[in-house]
């Protein structure tokens, strides 16, 4: 006779409520860990996806993600001539807010340097890649636009020709991919009055009116370099850096800057919350299991009076605790899988993290069971008479 199952069958609602409590703790823990993983994955997505070996950015800057970076748009020609360089692309990324059908939307505009970059690295969900030189865009599904929609950016209308999935920036804003020239135009946007005043200032200084152009005009954030097979990245980077007006960062440099500089505080904050949550989860699960045992002390005394071996009592407590832990874990994961896709930011549920969480739950349940079992084994049979 399995006493643990009999007890659960006797009060299924109570068991369900207990499991629900544990499950929501598990869901919260999965959420916190997943949020952390999601932020890291989002931050690294563009660095890992775009496929650049080196990033050439403004001198003495750690751009374009950790610091602002602005370099001449024709710098790619210089970089292209460096031995060991296989190909170059210009890169620009700017946050943009715009209205669509009365709704305010945000997107991170990323320039695609066609035809050298056909955008094959973009994970396309629907539609097609950019085919025209201007006024086409691929947008991430998280922005909320569909293929065929038209949005106005700067002074031009862009038609959505493709929808991507999972392409977001480190803030969680969905990306919108346009050609590099369109992206530079959007970045250089200014009002007519602003342009007139700038030209007037230039003329007043005895300069041509064109000197009053936007400071962003003709600028990009970085030049992405792909190296030839066998080329020494450090040697190529050193050669370019020797020019003096630019800095060169490797892919690993960009990853380190993002994780250990740009997102450091946020990561530590989330990890701290995760630790707090795991501590709370430990306390709550332990209390549940211990209380469950305390409530049965009289019955345990009766079992001892009847001559029950310790194994029977240990099994009753351990099995019930294991059932609560495992069922709570499974239910927690199910709730997480159902709910988190609707959260505004990515919650990445990785197998390793889920395995570690299962291990943590097993340890918590085992420890709580041991405390309960220790208390149960201290019960004396004569306590039935109490």
């Amino acid at each position, binding site marked *: *006779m399995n*006493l643990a199952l*009999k*007890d659960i*069958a*006797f*009060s299924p609602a109570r068991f369900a409520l207990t499991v629900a409590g544990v499950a929501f703790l598990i869901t919260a823990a999965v959420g916190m860990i997943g949020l952390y993983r999601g932020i890291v994955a989002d931050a690294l997505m563009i660095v890992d996806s775009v496929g650049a070996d080196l990033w050439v950015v403004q001198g003495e800057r750690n751009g374009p993600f950790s610091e602002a970076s602005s370099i001449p748009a024709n710098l790619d020609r210089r970089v292209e001539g460096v031995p060991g360089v296989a190909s170059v692309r210009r890169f620009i990324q700017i946050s943009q807010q715009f209205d669509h059908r009365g709704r305010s939307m945000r997107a991170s505009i990323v320039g695609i340097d066609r035809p050298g970059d056909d955008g094959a690295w973009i994970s396309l969900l629907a539609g097609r890649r950019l085919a025209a030189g201007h006024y086409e865009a691929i947008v991430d599904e998280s922005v909320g636009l569909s293929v065929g929609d038209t949005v106005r950016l700067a002074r031009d209308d862009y038609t959505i020709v493709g929808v991507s999935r999972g392409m977001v920036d480190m803030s969680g804003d969905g990306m919108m991919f346009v050609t590099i020239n369109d992206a530079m135009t959007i970045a250089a946007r200014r009002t007519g009055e602003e342009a007139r005043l700038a030209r007037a200032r230039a003329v007043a200084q005895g300069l041509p009116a064109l000197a009053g152009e936007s400071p962003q005009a003709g600028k990009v954030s970085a030049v992405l370099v792909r190296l030839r097979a066998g080329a020494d990245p450090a040697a190529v980077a050193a050669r370019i850096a020797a020019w003096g007006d630019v800095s060169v960062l490797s892919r690993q440099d960009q990853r380190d800057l993002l994780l250990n500089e740009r997102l450091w505080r946020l990561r530590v904050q989330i990890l701290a919350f995760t630790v707090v949550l795991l501590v709370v989860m430990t306390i709550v699960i332990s209390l549940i299991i211990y209380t469950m045992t305390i409530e049965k002390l*009289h*019955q345990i005394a*009766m*079992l*001892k*009076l*009847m*001559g*029950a*071996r310790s194994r*029977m009592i240990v099994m009753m407590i351990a099995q019930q605790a294991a059932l609560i832990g495992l069922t709570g874990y499974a239910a927690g994961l199910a709730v997480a899988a159902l709910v988190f896709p609707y959260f505004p930011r990515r919650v990445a549920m990785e197998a390793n993290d889920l395995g570690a969480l299962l291990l943590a739950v097993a340890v918590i349940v085992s420890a709580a069971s041991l405390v309960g079992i220790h208390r149960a084994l201290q019960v*004396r*049979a*004569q306590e*039935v*008479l109490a």
Partner: protein
Amino acid sequence: MTADPILRITNASKHFVSGDTVVRALDGVSIEVRPGELVGILGASGSGKSTMLLLAGLLEVPTAGTVDLLGTTVSYPDARLDRLRDLRRRHIGFVFQKANLIPFLTAAENVALALEIDDVPARAALNHAVALLEELGLGHRVDNRPARLSGGEQQRVAIARALANAPPLLLADEPTAALDSVRGRHVMELFHHISRSAGTAVVVVTHDPRSLDLFDRTYEFSDGKVIAEHRGNHTAPAMPLWEPRPHLTD
């Protein structure tokens, strides 16, 4: 009666130390209970009845003296209680004022549990439990949990549980205290019948004078000592209530 005693307590004392005070809960008590005997332990509260039951049930060891079960000395001042567990499981049944049934088990499962603890296979244990409950007039209640049983029915289930593995000794502590006179009498008649039909030695601690006529002998306790022993004139119960089932098969 001339058969060897099932239970023999010889010159047993039980002292508890409370601060600087030594409480003599039991002081040099000797009693014997033979097969088929129904023995009453009488006395006021604090007279040592329940302490005697703890010693007889191998739930405490005496401070002095010995406890013999089935002719073997099993409990003495240095005896280890955990080693007495198997003897208790095989040879002693307990009934208390409260039925102390496991609330999440049915009546039949409560009885079967005692057998499973004694390593009887689950199905055989349940079959025997159902048969036992039917013989105690609870055939219609086998699938009910304790909360759905009356106090008398719960006590009969507790008795069935105590009898499940046919112990030679049955110890009952105030088993009728929570029952009305009719149900209390019925339970006492059941004990009487058990002693007669199964040869079980039954010891009942009670202060209820209404069923004294059923006891073969009574010991009267006061201040931890036996102050009197009486032989009773029992009257046979109206109907047989229980037959032992010595053999269990799956």
